[in-house]
C-alpha cells in the first residue's frame, strides 16, 4: 500500500471553480516528490487533500490506508504536516516557543517530549535565538522557518512544503536543501511545491507537473525538461543550465553543472 493514494480526485470550490479535474497519484513511503505547475493550476488544492483540509468532491484520497473522508484534520495532522505557503496564515501565538509547542501538545505529546522536540527542532531550523520573540515581529523568511519548525515538532511521517523557499536567500535555500535531505534520511515522505526548478532538482528525482487541475507529466526532471510542448502548456520554462545544454546540441538536458561538463566533454 502506498503512503499516499489519490484516485480519480475531483474538487470544486463553493464558488463553482473546478480546481481539480480527475487526479490519480501514488506516492510511496520515504519518497520525495516535487509538484510544479503554473499559478492557479491546482497544486495547493491538491496537497490540501492530503491532511484533510479539503475533502474530495468526488474520488478518494488514502493516507496510510485511511480514507481521508473518515478522519478529521486533527487526526490526519498526526501523520501529515502541512506547511502553508503563507506563514502568516499559520502563526498565531505570542512567542515562537509557544508556536512550536502548540502542535505537539495538541496531539498528545508529553510535556518532556514536547520540550525536547522544541529545542531540537529550533536548533535544526536555526531559529533557536528567536524562541522568545513574537512571530509577528519577524521577517518574512524567519516566519517561513518558524512555520516549518512548528510542524516538524509534531514529527509527522508525511510532510508537505508549499513553496518553502520563496523568500530565502541563497544561504537559506542551501539550509533548506540540507534539512530536506536530513528528513529523507530519517524516512519521511516529502511533497514539495515550488517554482524553482533548480531547487526542485536538488531535492527530488520525481517531478509531477499539474496543469489545469490535471496531472500532465510525472517523471524524472531530465525527461520533463525536454517536453517542450507540455512545458509551454503548463506555463513552465526549463532552468537555464538544462536549456543551455539542449541549445548546444546535448542529447539530454544536463541537470547540474557536473552533468553539463560531462556532456560537454562527450560532445567534443
Amino acid at each position, binding site marked *: 500500500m502506498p503512503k499516499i493514494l489519490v484516485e480519480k480526485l475531483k474538487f470544486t*470550490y463553493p*464558488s463553482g*471553480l473546478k480546481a481539480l479535474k480527475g487526479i490519480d497519484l501514488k506516492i510511496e513511503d520515504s519518497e520525495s516528490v516535487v509538484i510544479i*505547475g*503554473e*499559478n*492557479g*493550476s491546482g*497544486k*495547493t488544492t491538491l496537497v490540501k487533500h492530503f491532511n484533510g483540509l479539503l475533502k474530495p468532491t468526488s474520488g478518494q484520497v488514502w493516507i496510510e490506508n485511511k480514507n481521508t473522508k473518515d478522519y478529521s484534520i486533527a487526526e490526519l495532522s498526526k501523520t501529515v504536516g502541512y506547511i502553508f*505557503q*503563507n506563514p*502568516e*496564515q499559520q502563526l498565531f501565538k505570542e512567542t515562537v516557543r509557544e508556536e512550536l509547542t502548540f502542535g505537539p501538545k495538541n496531539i498528545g505529546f508529553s510535556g518532556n517530549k514536547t520540550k525536547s522536540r522544541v529545542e531540537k527542532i529550533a536548533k535544526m531550523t536555526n531559529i533557536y535565538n528567536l524562541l522568545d520573540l513574537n512571530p509577528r*515581529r519577524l*521577517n*518574512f*523568511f*524567519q516566519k517561513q522557518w518558524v512555520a516549518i519548525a512548528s510542524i516538524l515538532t509534531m514529527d509527522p511521517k508525511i510532510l508537505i512544503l508549499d*513553496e518553502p523557499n*520563496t*523568500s*530565502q*536567500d*541563497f*544561504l*537559506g535555500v542551501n539550509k533548506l536543501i540540507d534539512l530536506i535531505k536530513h528528513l529523507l534520511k530519517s524516512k519521511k515522505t516529502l511533497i514539495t511545491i515550488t*517554482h524553482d*526548478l*533548480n531547487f526542485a532538482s536538488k531535492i527530488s528525482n520525481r517531478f509531477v507537473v499539474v496543469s489545469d487541475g490535471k496531472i500532465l507529466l510525472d517523471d524524472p526532471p531530465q525527461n520533463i525538461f525536454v517536453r517542450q510542448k507540455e512545458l509551454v502548456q503548463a*506555463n*513552465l*520554462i526549463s*532552468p*537555464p*543550465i538544462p*536549456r*543551455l545544454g539542449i*541549445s*548546444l546540441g546535448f542529447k539530454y538536458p544536463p541537470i547540474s*553543472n557536473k552533468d*553539463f*561538463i560531462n556532456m*560537454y*566533454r562527450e560532445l*567534443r
Partner: protein
Amino acid sequence: MGINIKDLSFIYPGSEKKALKNIDLNIGDGEFCCILGKNLAGKSTLCYTITGFIPHFFKGKIEGKVLIDDLDTTDLPLHKIVTKVGFVLQNPFNQLSGSKFTVFEELAFSLENLGIFRNEMIERVEEILKKLKIYDLKHRSPYELSGGQQQMVAIASILVMKPKILVLDEPTSQLDPVNSKLIFSLVEELNNDGVTIVIAEHKIDEIVEFADRILLIEDGKIVLDDSPNEVFKTFSKYKKYTKYMRPPCFVKLAQRMEREGLWKKNNGYPINFEQAKKEFSKRPTI
C-alpha cells in the same frame, strides 16, 4: 523622478541595532536598480524609506534625509508619496485592501483613492488586467485566488496607478517561471518609458538581464554599487562579496569549465543565456 538619500540611518522601535547605516545614494530619473543582499541585510528597510513607509508607517529612530523629486519624505504625507512612488510589497496578502469582493474592485480601489474619473478608471483597470494576463480573474474574489494569482493582482494594483517611481520587494517570489518573466519584462517596458525602478530580488539569474545597476547591501550598508557587467563579468570586484550573494548560474558554470580546462576567459564571464551560448559554442582552444 529621482531619489536622493543623504546620510540615512534607521533603528526599528525596540531594537538597538541600526538597520540602515549612513546610506548615501542617488538614483537618477529612469534608472533600473536592483538591491541584492542576504536576508536581514536591510533590503526591505531601504525600500520602506524610499516609499515613505519609514517614517510614516514604521516609527523608529531616523537620521538623515530621503528626497523624492526634491521633496523630503518626512514632510510629505503618505497619501502624497503614493502619487509618485508605487510599492509592491513582499507579501501580496498584505497588499490587498481586505474590503473588496472582486479583483476588478480591488484594482479600481487604488484609482478611486487617486480621484481618477470613472471612465478612465475602468479603462485603466481593463488594460492592466490584459497586460498581466489575469483578465479571467476579473470577477473572482481576491481571497479565493492561489498565492501566485494573488501576487499578480497585488502587482497590478500598483501598476494601475502608473507611478513615476516603482519599488518592488521580491515581487515574483510566488510566480511560476512564465509569469515571473512577464513581470520582469513589464517592469523593463515601464523603465523604457522612463519609470525609475528599484527592485529587491534574490533571483539573480533573471535580474542581470534587466538591471542597469546593482546595489549590494550588507549589514545596513551599501558595500557595492556597479553595473551587472562590471560586477560579474570581470569578477575581480565580486570576489570580496561571495559571502553575500551568489553569482549568476552561467558565471558559476564558466568558472567550473575554466578550472577543468574546457573554456578560456577572453571577454569576461557570460552573465546571461545568449552570452553563455555564444561562449560555449566555440570549441575550446586549450
